[in-house]
């Protein structure tokens, strides 16, 4: 009884850190179809391998510590028995390895469904952020968002993967294994979330100085929420409602900001940086670097190179008033 309790407490302790506020990012916390199948396979192989390891190390210790009655190098009977043991061990290895190979094949087949997908999203990775383009049923692009993917629960979502500069890799461990994004090639990734939740993902292929800060969140939500989100995202940017935000918009459009960022419904049409039309509705800033709040927006605008050294957003000299106004404006873009 007591040991069971301990076990539970231990499990709780282990589980606690897995549910960070920023969404989970763990292959063992599977919430997607593919990830669940993978988790099963992982546990199976780990278990088999653990047993093999215990057996080998057990035999090693037995061989080391066994009492030796006779010492007979070149003893024929002895050698014969040893040979038999070695060959049986080899045969066992072959069987285990073949079994694991077959298990892998079956798991592989389960991973890649050939159903037509319910939703298609285009993902473009670039140095150090993710761009997602949602399209309508005729495949015309509706809107872009950055570093945040919304998907309906229980549906097959196909992500087409492209890289705009170097190789990146899309990895959302709670939903599926990773898939590389390679310039000049097109890959695909299927996501199928089984439960609502926020899942964190991260670039898994080294892509330069800020590889560490190239995260994304996947929001898996029910059909209605997803539809509402889609509708909201398609709207142009909200007009500022306070004077401060109004001033912020003017600063944004008059300074270099607008040269790289788009805010639909304004003159800002830059395409180098993320689309900011609904930045206020997103969870994170700087590809998972900070939560979106007015304060973090201000900090980011004031000095992006200190928060994420080497990223492609320059330090634009702004007065502290201007920083405050721009962050007020951006925060209002929900």
């Amino acid at each position, binding site marked *: 009884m007591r040991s069971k309790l301990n076990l539970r407490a231990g499990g709780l302790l282990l589980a606690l850190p*897995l549910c960070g506020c920023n969404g989970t990012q763990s292959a063992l916390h599977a919430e997607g179809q593919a990830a669940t199948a993978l988790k099963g396979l992982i546990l199976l192989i780990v278990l088999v391998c653990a047993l093999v390891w215990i057996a080998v190390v057990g035999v*090693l210790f037995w061989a080391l510590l066994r009492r030796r009655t006779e010492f007979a190098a070149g003893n024929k009977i002895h050698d014969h028995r040893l040979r038999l043991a070695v060959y049986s061990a080899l045969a066992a290895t072959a069987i285990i390895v073949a079994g*694991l190979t077959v298990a892998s094949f079956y798991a592989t087949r389960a991973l890649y469904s050939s159903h037509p997908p319910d939703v298609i999203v285009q993902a473009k990775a670039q140095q150090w952020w993710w761009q997602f383009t949602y399209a309508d049923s005729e495949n015309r692009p509706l809107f872009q968002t950055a570093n945040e993917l919304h998907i309906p629960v229980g549906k097959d979502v196909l992500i087409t993967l492209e890289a705009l500069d170097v190789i990146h890799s899309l990895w959302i461990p709670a939903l599926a294994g990773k898939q*590389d994004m390679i310039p000049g090639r097109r890959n695909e990734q299927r996501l199928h979330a089984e439960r609502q939740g926020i899942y964190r993902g991260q670039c898994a292929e080294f892509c330069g100085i800020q590889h560490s800060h190239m995260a994304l969140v996947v929001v898996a939500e029910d059909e209605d929420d997803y539809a509402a989100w889609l509708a909201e995202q398609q709207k142009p940017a909200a007009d500022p409602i306070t004077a401060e935000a109004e001033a912020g918009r003017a600063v944004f459009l008059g300074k270099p900001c607008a040269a790289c960022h788009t805010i639909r419904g304004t003159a800002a049409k830059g395409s180098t940086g993320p689309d900011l039309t609904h930045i206020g509705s997103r969870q994170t800033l700087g590809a998972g670097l900070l939560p979106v709040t007015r304060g973090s927006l201000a900090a980011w605008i004031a000095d992006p190179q200190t928060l994420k050294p080497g990223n492609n957003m320059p330090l634009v000299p702004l007065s502290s008033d201007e920083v405050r106004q721009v962050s007020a404006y951006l925060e209002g873009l929900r």
Partner: protein
Amino acid sequence: MTKDDPILTPRDTDIADAELHARLMRTWTSPPGLWAAIATVDHKVIARRYIATAFVFLILGGILALAMRLQLSRPEARYISPDRYNQIFTMHGTNMMFLFAVPVMEAMAVYLVPLMVGTRNIAFPRLNAFSYWMFLGGGLLLWLSFALDTAPDVGWFAYVPLSGPEYGPGKRADLWAQMITFTEIAALAVAVEIVVTVFKQRAPGMSLDRVPVLVWAMLVMAFLVIFAMPAIMFASSTLILDRLVGTQFYNPAKGGDALLWQHLFWFFGHPEVYIIFLPAVGMVSTILPTFVRRPLFGYMLLVGALIATGILSFGLWVHHMFVTGLPRVGESFFTASSMAIALPAGAQIFCWLATIWAGKPVFRVPFLFVLGFIVTFVLGGLTGVMVASLPFDTQVHDTYFVVAHFHYVLVGGAVFPLLGAVYYWFPKMTGRMMSERLGKLSFWLIFAGFHLTFFPMHILGLIGMPRRIYTYQPELPWAGLNLFVSLSSLVLAAGFLVFFIDVVRSRRSGLPAGRNPWGASTLEWATASPPPAYNFAHIPVVFSREPLWDEKDALPVTSGLRTDRRELLVTSLAAAIPQARESVPEDSLWPFFAALATSAMLIGSIFTPWAVVWGAFPMAVTLIGWFWPKGTKEEMS
């Protein structure tokens, strides 16, 4: 046919041992002094240099590892800038693979193979000297660039396009690619020497089924080098061409392909693992029988497994590319082939277990490292089975799970045996024993430190921590384990510190070793410790696999070699029947000059393609100087 008059030339027949020693020393030793030291072609001297240099690189690489662990010990730490961190992990990987692991294994071969096959020097001793200077040049180039903050920052795998002309500004990636050329030239040279030494210079009677397993392992390793290294040479050269003269090998818009790089790199990169691991198999197979007082069980099976591993290693490079989106059928084939390599690896493990089972273990330090190796390597091999599974790999590829896996394989599978080998052959190399007490301390520190450092990384990988990140955010659940890993790495470092203290201390004041302190069976123990410049006063004749165990009374030897020039025996490939008394080159500075000229050409060609043209002339001059006959005794026949 020969102008070699048996009456007029001095022979090693019928002279007293002391007199023979004096005469052979006159012929074989290098004079004192710096220039003579540069000119020496004694395989033992060069190998010791090679080993010492490689261990210096190990220390430097270890310091880099500690720096990384410092940076990762807490989330969003700012001890090291991301730019520097990327240089550091690139340097760590590159340094450990190209400047430590491969060279140190080859250096062990350069030291041990001639002694174990019973000959007086390695084949092509001048090429051997050249190889060392090239290796040193490559190492200096890389570390100098690090000191000047221009070290490569593209990972030890240097994937294009990140390392290509558009995304890798400056000369950082070129330095990496050219360092490859330096070390590959060095490695290829040693590989050729090993192959020829094993094929043609074995002691009479050492037929292929009497060759020590270590020598077999080094031979297979040499062939792996010969077949695998051209791939990386081709890759790194085309990368420089892309960056320097605008070729389009890796530009998809003009018919090139980014994955071509990965194919080339891993076609080399996977055999590379076995280039490091197979020598370790040889070391274990040599050390183990000595400490269980019994011949190795399953010699034929083990040798077969070595060769099978070598061949298979060329058929599984794609498992490094499971998530690049290659056709699925092909990928499944590579799952099967990657899993299949578990069989020869298993055969090796089972043979060792059987040897221990049938023997009587004596727990000395080299044996401890062998045991540590088995425990650790089996775990690394099993995680290897895991990453060989395509679906499994899609979750753990490029995460800390893989970092843990290959450290188990490389540190557990190669460094543990190597440290054991150092304890085992240190008496042979220096004439002094290492400390048993410090040795046990360092073993336990390294063993415990290693597992405490690297085991948690498996878990880190499974709970989502990718590789090659310079920091992570506080809200991610990795901070605790990372701190634990960073602290454990200090234990590991302490273990290595004890080891190096022991080396330095024992070198000066260790107990005298004598010829054969472990009571081992192979030929290197038949000569003095350290061996004289000429290795063996008389070349031994071999009648069994364990010559020193089977010939208890007297060692059978040959006689009739000349003492006034450097002469050794050339024997036939399979049965090792004597064919000729070949003379071998004496000391020369030309290999050093050739290495200088080659270095100048290679470094110059980072900056301008014309360096290849003007650099060719000094190279030609030094090579002609190298091969032009000087009319010495060694050149007559």
